[in-house]
């Protein structure tokens, strides 16, 4: 019997909220529980969702990556610009992914070597890689991609399951195993808890950070390519503001912004909540803009409530003493 921890309590709470959201939405809209709607939920948000999974590693490690949405746009624009220049399409995809990984490697190197806060470095990335996307495509839009590629964003893969859902399920399980069941994952936690202790314990702190930021940007690059497949065309301003949903998913999942704690299960539940919430609000004809406000409030409230929960047992213990 594993020890009952703060994380378990939070996961349980998230599960209750998730079930509550689903039940409430189902009672409000007859089409809500249709398989199509449910599948759509993931298909329309796959880009954010896979980035949230890797962002979990980054935040558990005590860092943050604000550049992900810009790297998504950068990747999509490299794809578009290469395709426009006559590069064969598969090669253009490879170029986009290599460019994204390089973007993350650069940021990771700066963070690991100089000790400059990842907040500033990835903020420079947020501005800079959006800028790189803008240099590549200026204000043009590139489309007319091969059919097999745009189908990737639409067609079903296994029965009713689209590529997006399969990808998410595989990715979240693999990520959960890596985070919670491998030495690398333990290292990520230890560094997030106390980087000095990790260093003295012989954990390769710098290398871990470089690996995480490179992977984070690579996943953002994959997300950018998937986004291009779904939209059918790319522009430099796609995915603007996606950081909000992504960071909300991770922190609502119970991951501490200070690093060192959090679970992949919590993040998976939080992803379910955010997607269902947006979907339910959409079915209830709430504008996308208001939905964004709701997500913003959810972000603040989720951390506020965790703070309060953390203080409760402390008070009780003090009262007993």
């Amino acid at each position: 019997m594993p020890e009952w921890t703060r994380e378990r309590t939070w996961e349980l709470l998230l599960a209750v909220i998730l079930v509550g959201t689903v039940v409430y939405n189902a009672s409000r809209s007859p089409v809500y529980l249709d398989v199509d709607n449910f599948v759509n939920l993931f298909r329309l948000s796959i880009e954010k969702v896979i980035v949230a999974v890797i962002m979990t590693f980054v935040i558990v490690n005590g860092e943050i990556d604000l550049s992900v949405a810009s790297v998504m746009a950068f990747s999509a624009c490299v794809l578009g610009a290469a395709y426009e220049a006559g590069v064969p399409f598969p090669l253009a995809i490879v170029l986009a992914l290599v460019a994204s990984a390089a973007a993350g490697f650069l940021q990771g190197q700066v963070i690991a070597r100089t000790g400059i806060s990842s907040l500033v470095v990835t903020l420079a990335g947020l501005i800079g890689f959006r800028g790189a996307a803008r240099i590549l495509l200026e204000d043009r839009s590139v489309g007319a991609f091969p059919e097999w590629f745009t189908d990737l964003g639409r067609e079903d893969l296994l029965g009713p399951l689209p590529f997006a859902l399969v990808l998410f399920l595989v990715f979240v399980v693999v990520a959960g195993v890596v985070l919670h069941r491998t030495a690398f994952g333990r290292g990520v936690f230890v560094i997030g808890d106390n980087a000095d202790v990790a260093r003295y314990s012989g954990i390769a702190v710098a290398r871990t950070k470089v690996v995480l930021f490179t992977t984070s940007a690579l996943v953002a690059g994959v997300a950018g390519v998937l986004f291009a497949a779904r939209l059918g065309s790319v522009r430099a301003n796609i995915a603007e503001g996606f950081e909000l949903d992504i960071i909300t998913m991770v922190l609502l999942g119970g991951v501490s912004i200070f690093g060192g704690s959090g679970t992949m299960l919590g993040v998976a539940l939080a992803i379910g909540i955010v997607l269902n919430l947006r979907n339910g609000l959409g079915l209830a004809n709430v504008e996308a803009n208001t939905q964004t406000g709701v997500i913003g409030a959810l972000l603040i409230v989720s951390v506020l409530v965790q703070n309060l929960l953390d203080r409760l047992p402390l008070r009780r213990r003090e009262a007993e003493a």
Partner: protein
Amino acid sequence: MSTPAAPLWIRPERIKELSLVGVIAVALVIFGFLVDDYYSGQFFNRITTSVVITAVLAVAQTMVVVTRNIDLSVGSIVGVSAYLTGQYAAAHPDASPVLAVGLALGIGALLGAVNGLLVAYGRVPAIIVTLGTLAIYRSWLVSHAEARTITADSLPSWVVDLPTRTVVSVGSLDVRAVFFVVVVIVALLAAGMQRLRWGRRLYAIGSNPEAAAQAGLPTRRLVFGAFVACGALSGLAGFLFLARFGTITVVAGQGLELDSVAAAVVGGVSVLGGSGTLVGALLGAVLIDVLDQSLVRVPQVSEFWRNAILGALILAAVIADVAIGRRFRRRWSAEARPHTKVTEDEPADPAPALEASDA
């Protein structure tokens, strides 16, 4: 390095400010080669008119950042303040300008107070709070505005004429009234941050929040105050935005939070708190604005290069900061030690991360 011992008055922030002046000068020289007829009175006037918004926001951001916090909601505060003040001025054309400016400041201060309350008393990290309120304030504005736009012809003439109002003219160089007012505000705040108790306390909190609390500083109230001040200044920037553009849509001010943080960081303000000056932030804003106003006139590049250059500039600024800090910080803190006053160049963290390398 066998440099002679630096006297105490050449402090790291002076070096940062001076090198930034150097960078601005170099940028002006380079643009002078690239652009025909670059050094004109008109160009000076355009820069001084446009820089005020970025400058006020950079200073606002700095007041929060020195306390080891950040305010990502300033762009949304600018939007809300510009829109509501515009609505008010359009509905009450005879209302006193003081009232309109006061309204803009008040709206900003109120929104800043919400941020400050959640950060200082709710103990939610500033990046979370303001990333949330960035979305909340904007989405409130969008639903409030219902797709209506404030137009310049609905505004009283004193608002629209404000940007071109001139205090003194030297040849073809006009010193705009807004520029003059903003410089005075920044100078007063800068003096307060350097000399007054509340200013030094903000730095103390940013240098070491635990130590500041242990020393009995009212840290929560001060952090709350910093957010209110940041909000009020952002509200003022909203008013300047209204006066400059006249036409206000629901996306007004979007993305300005990035410019404000960029200006502060380029201006030598450390996001780890406790270090950086308002003058530096002001210079950072000037540099960004010079780039903005000049790039569009360079035939070889386009305005699409703007963000890529800005990103690289931030990275260069922080890396240079680390390089300068590593070389000089020890000497400065050794010289500063005999004095018991709080110094802002105390390393926030003895920076073991600098030696971060794989074992």
